[in-house]
């Protein structure tokens, strides 16, 4: 295998080892093209388990020290596209390690690459700046992924994550960059990291923390209007959202629903054009995974399609009094109850035990017309945990009342 091929395979650290193997031949060709038209870039990443790649399993220990290998990919953006700067490779680098959400105690940085070594090594409790020369003058290292060095990091306060900053509070002269030189302009070595620079790797202290998904509890479109549901995902602290999907299996057969996730899976949009035959309630569950693909969180949206063609008239598509089945059910530790009121009105939503005793008053106030949702953690009005069993919940307004059952399973 040529050196180019070795570099190409090595330049895709961490994201998906299986895909990496499958793509190896393609990467080899791509790397050849890259070498033929050299580019420089693009991102730093961390490795704590010594496998040379960055995965969700790499993290800072909550207590005690973690040995962190700092890597730099000089040839490609994180998404695999070639870097934009026409530089031949690596001869120097500088970077700013940054503790986020806490402070750390830094160990000694040991440079891995040859050359004249570390030029500068400055730090405080939240930042550590390193500048180093990796090659003898006049020589550069080909594009690829390189382990720059190793440093020990020990949390001192809070639950810090480790990131790479573009600029530093230590000194205005400190930046994150690498060289040797780049054609054009002012040799802005921060800009050379391109758009992908913004997604610089962060090393979390809780890699398995799931994200948080936000979506409407219920949507009630006008008759034959297209359905559009917006989803937002908030990653865990220093986390990432590795995937965002929608379960469309409950929609009618032959539906044309499409779910599209946005940049970094932080947003998503479900679009669906129902037909005249579609009516009733459809539940779509949106699921997001964190840095650890197994760490997931979900949110269900009820799509309530009205049936009357005449309801195209705005005056006839007013919300109706509805009480939907809670989701999930059975549940533990919490569930969500969706309901709708026809006009602004005082509404009460009360949970009763099987003997008819009121145990939890979830809603008792004036509600605006339209759909609403309320979360219940299975506790009574005094905050006590309720026993497993069947409960009844009842929505009451001056426009009527509805009752359903739910199951608490601890």
């Amino acid at each position, binding site marked *: 295998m040529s050196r180019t091929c070795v570099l190409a395979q090595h330049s895709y650290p961490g994201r998906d080892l299986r895909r990496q193997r499958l793509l190896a031949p393609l990467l080899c060709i791509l790397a050849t093209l890259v070498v033929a038209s050299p580019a420089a870039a693009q991102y730093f990443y961390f490795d704590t388990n010594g496998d040379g790649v960055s995965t969700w399993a790499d993290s800072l220990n909550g207590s005690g020290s973690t040995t962190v290998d700092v890597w730099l990919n000089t040839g490609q953006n994180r998404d695999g596209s070639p870097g934009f700067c026409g*530089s031949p490779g690596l*001869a*120097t*680098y*500088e970077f700013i390690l940054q503790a986020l959400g806490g402070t750390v105690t830094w160990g000694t940085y040991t440079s891995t690459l040859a050359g*004249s070594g570390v*030029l*500068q090594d400055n730090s405080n409790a939240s930042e550590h700046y390193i*500048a180093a*020369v990796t090659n003898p*003058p*006049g020589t550069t290292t080909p594009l690829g992924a390189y382990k720059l060095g190793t440093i020990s990091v020990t949390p001192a306060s809070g639950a810090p994550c480790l990131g790479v900053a573009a600029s530093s509070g230590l*000194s*205005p*002269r*400190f*930046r994150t*960059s690498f*060289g*040797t*030189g*780049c*054609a*054009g*302009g*002012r*040799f802005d*070595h921060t800009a050379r990291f391109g758009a992908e620079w913004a997604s610089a790797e962060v090393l979390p202290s809780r890699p398995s923390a799931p994200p948080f998904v936000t979506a409407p509890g219920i949507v009630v479109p006008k008759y034959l209007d297209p359905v559009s549901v917006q989803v937002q995902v908030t990653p865990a602290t220093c986390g990432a959202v590795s995937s965002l999907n929608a379960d469309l299996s409950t929609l009618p057969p032959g539906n044309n629903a499409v779910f599209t996730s946005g940049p970094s899976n932080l947003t998503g949009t479900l679009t669906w054009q129902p037909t005249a035959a579609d009516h009733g309630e459809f539940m779509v569950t949106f699921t997001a995974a964190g840095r650890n693909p197994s760490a997931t969180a979900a949110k269900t949206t009820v799509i309530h399609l009205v049936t009357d063609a005449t309801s195209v008239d705005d005056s006839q598509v007013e919300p109706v009094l509805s009480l939907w089945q809670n989701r999930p059910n059975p549940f533990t530790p919490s569930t969500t109850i969706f309901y709708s009121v026809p006009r602004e009105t005082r509404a009460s939503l009360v949970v009763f035990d099987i003997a008819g005793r009121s145990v939890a008053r979830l809603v008792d106030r004036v509600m605006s017309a339209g759909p609403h949702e309320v979360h219940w953690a299975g506790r009574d009005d005094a905050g006590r945990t309720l026993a497993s069993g069947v409960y009844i919940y009842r929505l009451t307004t001056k426009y009527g009342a509805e009752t359903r059952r739910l199951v608490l399973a601890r």
Partner: protein
Amino acid sequence: MNSWIRIRMVVAALALAGWTGTSAAQVSPDKSFYVPQAGLDYNNPLEGTDAIPYFRACPNNDGDGSLPLDARIKVVVRDANDAGIKDIAASDICILFNGGPPVQGYTGNGADSVIANSTYNPAFNCPDVRCVQADGPTDADGVTYITFTGAGGVRDPNRKWGHYDSVLPVYVLGVPIQGRITSNDNNGTYVLQIKNFDQVGGLTTILNTGEIVNSNDINAVQANIVAPPVFWRDFDGDLFVTIADLNMVLFHNLHRCNSPNNP
């Protein structure tokens, strides 16, 4: 003819040209001036402190960070009545070099420094740079430009110089004019200095030690990263000598008069 004699003759000729020009309109050193500029749009340029960071050169004048963005000065030539003087020939408007330090036999007006000269760089394609002239004659407002890399930003292989560390005087028809940091400032608020990636060596009579970027320059910049910044080594003009400055020198390592472009 020795170079120092030649330079004196050039200066004398410029002075003479200035003298003969007085019958029509005499260049006023008080009203005339130059301004540092950069940017490919000459009608909407960077000026002053926004332009000066681009005033850095490689002895090969080879681009790639050397004199980028058409780094230049705008020259405005006016008479005592503050009226622009038009049609002054480009060759009468010069950034003036004098050839080298006294130990090499160079004296007289012009940058008293080491610049490209064939006497001390005989084996390489080093031009004898004395006058870096204007891109063209002055227009009706007495305005022209001196784009350092060559007229209109096109590389001129006869504009290659190395280490120097003093002010570059600007002459019009033999009359030295002053700089302004911006067009709206006063004369004397700016002096022209162009940093060079070759900033070590060449001050003696040893042949071929100037006009080349080599390990001496790299080591000097590298050492300056952890020391008080030296103006001539702050190539990106951010007031610090950083690894970014070192990267520029590394990129131009071993560049000289005949390499990578020859001539």
